[in-house]
C-alpha cells in the first residue's frame, strides 16, 4: 500500500528471524528447569545451602527468560497466519494437530512454572521439588510436539488430497508420527540439553575466570557443565543417525549438505568449498570416498545429486552453499564441544576435579555461544535444505506466502522490537546478577513481591 514490495523474501526473513530468536530461549525452558531440580534435590537431600541458593536464583532468572520465550512464541503463532495464510488455509487441518498438543504442554509448563516460583515459600520442600517435575516433562513434551510439526513439513504424512486439492482423510497419528519425527525430536531434545548446559555453565566459567571460585560458583558450573558434557558426545551419535535418516528420506537435502551435484558412488566428503553458478564444486578439502563411506558404510554407496530432480524442485546452488556451510559449522562446533566434554569427563574421572588448565575455563566460557551457533546452523540445514518447499513435495513456499506487500514494514518493526527486548533482557539479567553479588535479593516475575528498602 504505502510502498508495496514482493512479500516473499520479507516473509521468509521475518519467519527465520523470529524462529531463530525463539529457539535461543527454548533450551533454557527445557533444560534449565532440569538443572534447577538437580540443585534443589541436592539441597533437600544434603541440606546444601549453596545448592538451594542456586536453585532459587536460577528459577528467578528462568522466570524472566520464560516470559521472553512465551511472548516470542506467541508471535510465531500469529505469524503462521500473517505470513503463511495460504499454507495454513490449506494444510492447517493436518499441520495444526501437533500444535494443539503443544498448547497443552505449554499450558502445563506455564502453570507449574508459576506454582514452582510462587511456591518457594508456600510449599514444603518436598512438595516444591515435585511441583518442578511437570515443568521438565512438559518442556520435553512441548518440544516433541512442535518438532513434530516441523518434521511433518519435511516428511508430510497422515492425509490425502482430494481432486480439488483439499486435505481429506486426516490421520492424526500419521501426522504426528511422521518419518522425520523420531530423529528430529531426539536431535533437538539433546540439543536443548546441550545448549542449555553450556549456556549456563559459560556464565559460571566467566565468573571463575574473574576469580570468583568459591563453592557456590563451582557448584553452579559443575551442575550445568555435567548436563552439557553428557549431551555433547551423545549428540554426535544422534546427529549421525539423523544424517543417515536424511540420506534415506530426503536425498535432495542430503545432496545439498554434501555438495553433490551429479549422482554417483565413491563421493568425497568436502570440508568447506562451494558450488559455483554451474554446479561445479570449488575449493574446500576433499576426503575421497568419505561421504559414501559414512552414509552407507561402503565407498560404493550411491549418493543422489541435486540434478537428480528438476531445477525447480530443489534448492538453488546458492541455497545449497548455505546448507553446506551451515552443516560444516554444526559438525565442526559439535565435534569441538564433544571434545571439550570428553576432556572434562576424563579429568573428573581421574581426579574428581576440573581440568587445571586455564584453557579449559576459557573454552567453557565460549562454549555457550558456540553451542547456540551450532544449533542455529542445524536449523539452517533443515530449513534452507527443504527449499523450495514449505511442505516437501506438496506446496512451494511462494504458494503458501501472504500476498500482503506491507510485510517489509512488519519485518523492520519486528527486528527493532526484538532488538529492544533482547537488549532489555540482557540488561535486566546483568542487573539481577549485580544485585545478588551485592547481597540483595531482587524480585522476579511470578514471585511474591519481597519487601524492598
Amino acid at each position, binding site marked *: *500500500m504505502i510502498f508495496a514490495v514482493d512479500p516473499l523474501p520479507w516473509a521468509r526473513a521475518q519467519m527465520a528471524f523470529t524462529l531463530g530468536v525463539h529457539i535461543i530461549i527454548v533450551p533454557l525452558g527445557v533444560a534449565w528447569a532440569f538443572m534447577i531440580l538437580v540443585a534443589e534435590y541436592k539441597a533437600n537431600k544434603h541440606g546444601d545451602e549453596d545448592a*538451594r541458593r542456586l536453585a532459587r536464583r536460577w528459577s528467578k532468572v528462568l522466570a*524472566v527468560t*520464560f*516470559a521472553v520465550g*512465551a511472548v516470542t512464541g*506467541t*508471535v510465531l503463532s*500469529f505469524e*503462521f*497466519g*500473517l505470513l503463511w*495464510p*495460504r499454507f*495454513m*488455509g490449506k494444510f*492447517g*487441518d493436518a499441520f495444526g*494437530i501437533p*500444535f*494443539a498438543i503443544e*498448547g*497443552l504442554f*505449554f*499450558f*502445563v509448563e506455564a*502453570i507449574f512454572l*508459576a*506454582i514452582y*516460583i*510462587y511456591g*518457594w515459600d*508456600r510449599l*514444603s*520442600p518436598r512438595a516444591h521439588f515435585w511441583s518442578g517435575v511437570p515443568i521438565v516433562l512438559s518442556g520435553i513434551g512441548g518440544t516433541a510436539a512442535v518438532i513434530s510439526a516441523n518434521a511433518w513439513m519435511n516428511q508430510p504424512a497422515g*492425509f490425502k488430497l482430494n481432486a480439488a486439492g483439499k*486435505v481429506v482423510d*486426516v490421520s*492424526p497419528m500419521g501426522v504426528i508420527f511422521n518419518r522425520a519425527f523420531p530423529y528430529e525430536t531426539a536431535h533437538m531434545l539433546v540439543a536443548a540439553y546441550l545448549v542449555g548446559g553450556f549456556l549456563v555453565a559459560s556464565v559460571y566459567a566467566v565468573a571463575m575466570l574473574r576469580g570468583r571460585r568459591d563453592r557456590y560458583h563451582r557448584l553452579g558450573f559443575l551442575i550445568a557443565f555435567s548436563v552439557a558434557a553428557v549431551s555433547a558426545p551423545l549428540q554426535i551419535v544422534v546427529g549421525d543417525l539423523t544424517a543417515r535418516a536424511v540420506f534415506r528420506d530426503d536425498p535432495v537435502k542430503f545432496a545439498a549438505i554434501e555438495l553433490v551435484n551429479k549422482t554417483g558412488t565413491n563421493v568425497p566428503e568436502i570440508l568447506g568449498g562451494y558450488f559455483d553458478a554451474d554446479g561445479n564444486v570449488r575449493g574446500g578439502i576433499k576426503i575421497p570416498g568419505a561421504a559414501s563411506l559414512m552414509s552407507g558404510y561402503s565407498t560404493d554407496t550411491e549418493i543422489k545429486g541435486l540434478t537428480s530432480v528438476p531445477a525447480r524442485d530443489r534448492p538453488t546452488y546458492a541455497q545449497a552453499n548455505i546448507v553446506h556451510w551451515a552443516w560444516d559449522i554444526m559438525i565442526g562446533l559439535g565435534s569441538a564441544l564433544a571434545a571439550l566434554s570428553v576432556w572434562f569427563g576424563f579429568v573428573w574421572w581421574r581426579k574428581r576435579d576440573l581440568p587445571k588448565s586455564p584453557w579449559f575455563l576459557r573454552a567453557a566460557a565460549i562454549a555457550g555461544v558456540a553451542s547456540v551457533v551450532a544449533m542455529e546452523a542445524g536449523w539452517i540445514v533443515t530449513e534452507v535444505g527443504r527449499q523450495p518447499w514449505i511442505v516437501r513435495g506438496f506446496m512451494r513456499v511462494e504458494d503458501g506466502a*501472504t*500476498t*500482503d506487500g*506491507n510485510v517489509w514494514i512488519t519485518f523492520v*518493526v519486528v527486528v527493532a522490537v*526484538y532488538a529492544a527486548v533482547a537488549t*532489555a*533482557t540482557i540488561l*535486566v539479567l546483568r*542487573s539481577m546478577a549485580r544485585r545478588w553479588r551485592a547481597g540483595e*535479593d531482587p*524480585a*522476579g*516475575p511470578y*514471585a*511474591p*513481591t*519481597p*519487601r*524492598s*528498602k
Partner: protein
Amino acid sequence: MSGAEAMAVVLFGAVTAYAIFGGADFGAGFWDLVAGGAERGRRPRALIEHAIGPVWEANHVWLIFCLVVLWTAFAQTFASITLTMFVPLSIAALGIVLRGSGFAFRKVVPTVAEQRVFGAAFAISSVVVPYCFGAIVGGIVSGRVPAGGRAGDRVTSWINGSSIVGGLLAVTVCAYLAAVFLTYDAQRTGARDLVGYFRRRAIGAAIVAGALALIGYFVLAADAKHLHEHLGGRGLPLVILSTVCGLAALVLLIRESIRAARAFAVVAVAAVVWGWGVAQWPYLLPTSMTIERGAAPSGTLVALFIVTGVAVLVIVPSLALLYVLDQRNVLEPGQPGAPADARTPPTTTGN
C-alpha cells in the same frame, strides 16, 4: 450437533475463558496505566502486581489455545482472518511482546525510572491489544472478512463503526472485570482503602460498558445486519442474562457484596461472548463461511476433541491449584526454604 459444531462450541469456550482471565489481566494493565504518578499510584500498582503476578502467563495461554483450535479445526477461516486483519493482528502481536516483557522486566529492575519505562510498555499495550481484538471481532461480525483466500479491505475492515465499538467495548469490559477482581483482592488482603478505590472504578466501568453496549446495539443494527437480527432473536435470552447479571453485579458492588458481585460480573461477560456466538451461528464469517463448510476432516476434529478432553482433565485442576496457592499464605517462618522477609503482606509493599 455435528462434530464441527461441537468444535465451534469448544472454540467459543476457549474464547470465553480468554475473555475472562486474559481480559481481567489486560484490564489490570489499564488500571495500572491510569493509576497516576509514581507516588499516587504506588498502592494500587502494588495490588495489581500482587494479583496478576503469578497467573498472568497462564491466563494468556488461552489465547494460544484459541489460535491453535482455530487454525487446526477451521483453517480456511483462520487464513481469511489473518489475510484481512494483517494490520491489527500485527499490532496485537507486537503489543503482546511489549506487554509480557514489560511486565516481567518491571518486576526485576531496581530503579523507579526503569520501572516506569517497562511499566509504561506493559500498561499501554494492555489497552492496545484488547482494542485490536475487539476491532477484529467487529470486522468479522459485520461481514468484512470474506472467505475464499482473498483479503478484505485492509483499512476499513478494522476501522469502521462495529470495530470501533468492538474495540472500545473490549477495553472497557477488561477494565470492568479487572476492577471487580481487584476490589475482591483488596478486600481479601485487608487493604481497606483500595476496596473503595477499585469499587468506584468497577462501578464506573460498568456504567461505561453498559452505555457502550447500548450504542453498539444500534451500530450493529446499521452495520452488522445478520448479527443484529439474531441478537434480538435467538440471542435474546443471553442478552437479557447479561443485562440482568450486569445490573445485579452493579447493585452488589454498591452494597459492597464483592464476592457475589464478582460471580455476576463473570456471568455477564461470558453471556456477551456467548450471545455473539449464538447470534452468529451457523457462520464463522458472516455470511460467507459456515461452521460446517470451513471445518477440518473428522480425523483432525477427533484429535482436537481428545486434546480438549485432556485439557479439561489436566489443565483445570492445575489452574485450580495455582489459584488456590495464590490465595494461600506463606509458610511459617523457620521452616526450611522460607526466608524471613518473604512473609510481608503484599499490599504494604512496592516502595
